[in-house]
């Protein structure tokens, strides 16, 4: 899932701090998305009576489809934002207040 482009220049010896920062931002976002996915699919698929500790068949199937649909939604939203010229680095259509 390469949400962000890489920096163009590639110095051979030292550390390109901007590139490292980009990688860390990407990592943070993937972690954030994963945590939201875990939480959303838990709400949608797991019964909260907790009569047993194992996932039953229905819950397992639901999880697989939940993750699949989440990725589809992620793709659709990403394409829409990109089409709006609002993707990585651009302004989000004035969605954020100027500080």
């Amino acid at each position: 899932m390469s949400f962000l482009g890489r920096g163009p220049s590639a110095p051979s010896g030292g550390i390109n701090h901007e590139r490292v920062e980009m990688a860390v931002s990407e990592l943070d976002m993937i972690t954030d998305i994963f945590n939201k996915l875990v939480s959303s699919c838990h709400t949608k698929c797991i019964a909260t009576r907790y009569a047993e500790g194992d996932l039953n068949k229905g819950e397992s199937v639901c999880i697989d489809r939940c993750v699949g649909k989440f990725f589809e939604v992620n793709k659709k939203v990403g394409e829409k934002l990109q089409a709006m010229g609002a993707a990585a680095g651009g302004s989000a259509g004035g969605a954020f207040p100027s500080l």
Partner: protein
Amino acid sequence: MDLSQMNAAEQAHVSKIIERKQMQDFLRMYSNLVDRCFNACCNDFTTKALTNKEETCVMNCTDKFLKHSERVGARFAEHNADAMGATGGK
């Protein structure tokens, strides 16, 4: 934010931090948007693929969320400017 009481070095430093934070804010907004529209639109897991109805819902949800954020942002900036003015620009 009022950066006018800072010297040039401080302003440059803060600007750089703000720039980085804006990128992070954009990414967080993006993942919130995906999560919000997924939660509002996808509630049927008897099908594997996104249905047409779900896809339309996601597109409208995205559209509406961005317009919502934009409107909140505009009002926020106005109220913020008022509040700044009321305290003598500080």
